[in-house]
């Protein structure tokens, strides 16, 4: 038998569970050891990456989800840090979990935490680096986003669900009917930081991350909620190490009246 054909049959038996393919091995049934190694190790990768999902659905259900995910979406690279990007979308499509509508968004949060931990290193913009800026130039500040900064918003209380399942000391009741939540995920001192953002702060941060100036972003925040306070929101972002640097918007945009 040609080596390539033999390996294709071996791999097929591993992915699809043929107990002992007739490809000239003895004892052929020991292929099950390799299959177990492949599935158990990849399920272990997912378990380490999605601890909250595992806790939410329970060990048995989680293991079942992992085995199906591995069979349907095997890794396409030996770099397993990249494995699991599609897990959230996979959970969304599972009919058995359709009642747990928040699950995919929580999985997105866990995946974002994983990505942030391994994202590129970059200098951090510290609050004191803004100290000398003249007051009239502050609204023109445009921040450079750190490669390890992510913004996530969901229709479900993802931050409350995540915290209560990550930290036993903070366990409390959560209802999926609670209002949706948004978070800023960043890396701070080599640890992943998950910062909850109230609705107006989310609008403000979303504007800043998409390149709006501080003044424009603050206006967007105030438009969302007139009680929005710029200073504490900006301080929290700087403390979260969300930026690497800043520059000034070249020209103030001039409002042109509608003709």
């Amino acid at each position, binding site marked *: *038998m*040609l*080596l*390539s054909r*033999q*390996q*294709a049959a*071996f*791999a097929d038996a*591993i*992915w699809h569970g043929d107990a002992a393919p007739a490809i*000239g*091995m*003895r*004892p*052929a*049934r*020991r*292929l*099950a*050891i*390799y299959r177990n*190694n*492949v599935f158990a*190790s*990849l399920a272990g*990768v997912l378990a380490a990456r999605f601890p909250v999902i595992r806790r939410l659905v329970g060990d048995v259900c989680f293991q079942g989800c992992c085995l199906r995910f591995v069979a349907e979406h*095997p*890794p*396409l*690279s*030996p*770099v*397993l*840090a990249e494995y699991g990007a599609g897990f959230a979308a996979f959970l969304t499509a599972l009919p058995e979990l359709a009642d747990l509508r928040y699950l995919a968004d929580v999985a997105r949060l866990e995946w974002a935490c994983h990505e942030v*931990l*391994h*994202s*590129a*290193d*970059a200098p951090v913009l510290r609050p004191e680096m803004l100290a000398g800026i003249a007051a009239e130039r502050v609204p023109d500040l445009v921040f450079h986003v750190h*490669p*390890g900064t992510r913004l996530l918003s969901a229709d479900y209380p993802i931050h409350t669900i995540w915290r209560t399942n990550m930290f036993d000391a903070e366990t409390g009741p959560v209802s999926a009917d609670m209002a949706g939540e948004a978070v800023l995920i960043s*890396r701070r001192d*080599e640890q992943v930081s998950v910062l909850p953002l109230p609705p107006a702060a989310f609008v403000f941060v979303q504007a800043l991350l998409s390149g709006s100036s501080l003044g424009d972003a603050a206006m967007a925040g105030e438009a969302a909620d007139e009680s929005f306070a710029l200073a504490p929101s900006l301080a929290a972002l700087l403390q979260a190490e969300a930026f690497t640097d800043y520059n000034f918007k070249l020209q103030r945009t001039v409002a042109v009246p509608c003709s």
Partner: protein
Amino acid sequence: MSSRLHIAAADPIPAQAGIGLRAGHYADFGLAPQRVAWIEVHPENYMCAGGPQHRVLGAARACCPVSFHGVGLSLGGAARPDKAHLARLAELIRRYEPSLFSEHLAWSIEDGRFLNDLLPLPYTKEALERLVSHVDEIQDYLGRHMLIENPSLYLSFEGNETDEPALLTELVRRTGCGLLLDVNNVFVSATNCGFDPRGYLARYPLAAIEEIHLAGYRAEIDADGVEVLIDTHNDLISDPVWALYRHVINQTGPRPTLIEWDQDLPAWDVLLGEAARADDIMRTEVLHAAE
């Protein structure tokens, strides 16, 4: 700092025991890196843009020699070594200047899908030609010599035309690669496939050994009711493996010897204890050889 890094880069791995460094031991290692003669890591675990892994490996590299033990090149697979993977590997090699680089006599990629295990090859002329071509290509690309490790086998192929020591001998002769002898794998494969481990070693090209691996296995009963040893890297090195290691060192003299422990990580001191035991065997066997 940079001059020290440069000097360290020229250091070969010493003929002493080293430890496979895993993320769960970063803190323990960092507290007293001088307690370890050298470390080994899987480069695939560092193929990410940034984060704590790179800081730890950079700091480790400034303290001791580092060896790269690859698990992603699928030497025995049908496809040629993946260029993107080789490029990432070359970048890590430039960055960390590992003293040794090794891979496995196995395959793990089929039709673009990565099976996260080291899968067995039939020992045939066809497999040998494929291995020679892939090892040549990798060594040419990286501009350096690599070591090949014998796998743990749970089954064997009826179509084998040769045995593992003969295949490795031929691979060394044709590619100029070196060998990483995993003594635990020899014992595991010998038990599972029914051959004599000392007979295997008598046929193995010991002169090509540049590194040795030691690890623990787990015994299970297979579907046919037969005992099978699983290469789990989750326990102390077994007595028969220590005896086999002593038998090897007696013939080769001291060689860089890695303690591998990947699952159910023990206290760091347990690994230091296993390393001390390997160092002790290397010292006593050298004394015996001198007598």
